[in-house]
């Protein structure tokens, strides 16, 4: 199809080192059925305004770096198409995060929260297994055991769920949907032995209990992980941990 039809993109511009406050700039972009928001941004950068800053890498909803707000809803730029919108598009950097420049958000807090829940397999006997005398054994897993956590394992760390979460917006210390989902993902993995190390983070007021089950995170997740369900499972786990804690000396 020939690119004759044009669409208006209104983009929030902001350079904290120069500008007093963010401003909006309008761009006319030719588009067809296959033009994504990311394609439009690349067109603007290459043909209209090289100073526009935004993040991207894979173009296929895998790297999680092209997250922006489109008409107020957190979206992956490469998975969102201009054809889906009848009027103008308003593009802003992810909500609830500080802005580095234009559409580039500062994701430091997000990464810290992911780290806090130790999102990797923890094995008690690991150090012993690495001595030459004891050959490391593979950890077997049945399809049934895999199915337990699989749906929570495809997170691409895009941060859309944090931009969607009003509780993270109110309290940036809240670990948030993706981190709590990752914690649940490893806690459900039969190869993992690190649950006891993760639970204290989940049990705190900024852990699972910071969630009030709004559920918008699950609506916006581009990988359909259902982080809200994972957090609710985490609440059951934390409540169980609470009761066990009562009986432990």
């Amino acid at each position, binding site marked *: 199809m020939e690119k004759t039809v044009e669409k208006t993109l209104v983009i929030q511009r902001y350079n904290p080192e120069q500008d007093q406050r963010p401003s909006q700039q309008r761009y006319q972009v030719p588009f067809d059925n296959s033009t994504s928001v990311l394609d439009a941004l690349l067109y603007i950068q290459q043909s209209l305004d090289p100073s526009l800053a935004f993040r991207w890498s894979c173009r296929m909803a895998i790297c999680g770096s092209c997250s922006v707000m489109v008409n107020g809803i957190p979206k992956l730029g490469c998975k969102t198409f201009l054809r889906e919108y009848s009027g103008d598009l308003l593009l802003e950097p992810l909500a609830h995060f500080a802005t580095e420049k234009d559409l580039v958000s500062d994701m430091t807090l997000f990464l810290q929260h992911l780290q*806090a829940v130790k999102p990797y397999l923890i094995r008690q006997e690991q150090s012993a297994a690495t001595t030459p005398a004891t050959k490391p054994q593979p950890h077997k897993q049945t399809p049934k055991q895999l199915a337990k956590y699989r749906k929570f394992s495809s997170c691409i760390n895009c941060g859309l769920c944090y931009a969607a979460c*009003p509780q993270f917006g*109110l309290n940036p210390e809240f670990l948030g949907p993706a981190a709590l989902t990752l914690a649940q993902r490893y806690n459900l993995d039969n190869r993992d032995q690190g649950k006891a190390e993760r639970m*204290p*983070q989940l*049990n*705190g*007021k*900024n*852990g699972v*209990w910071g969630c*009030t089950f709004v559920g918008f995170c699950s609506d916006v997740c581009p990988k359909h992980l259902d982080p809200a369900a994972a957090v609710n499972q985490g*609440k059951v786990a*934390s*409540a169980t941990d*609470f*009761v066990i*804690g009562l009986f432990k000396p």
Partner: protein
Amino acid sequence: MNQPKRSDEPIWWALFSAGGVCFAVVIPGLLLTIALLYPLGVLPENALNYQQVQQWLLQDWWGLAGLALAGAAICLPLFHAMHRIHHGLHDLKLSSGLLGKILCYSSASLFSALALYFWWQGLG
């Protein structure tokens, strides 16, 4: 990273969840019977007469049915509602502190205690 303090939220969440079940099952059932079917004359006229109901709730089975009803129709739904209000106040930035929490849960406790007190009185 140092360990965060364990939250006492599981207690309130458990009461909230139990109350949610009551709100979803018991309350609609009660409303259907008392506020709809009975006034519409679908149930026999003396099905809910005072002596009969008092017998069921406060005398048969040591009054356990009355206790269950007070718990399921008053106490647990109260904790459910006050839990929502407590978190709603936080969302509206009206109160994020201890005061709102104490007010919410203590009023739920007070009215629950009253309900149980009246049940206890009714037994005698």
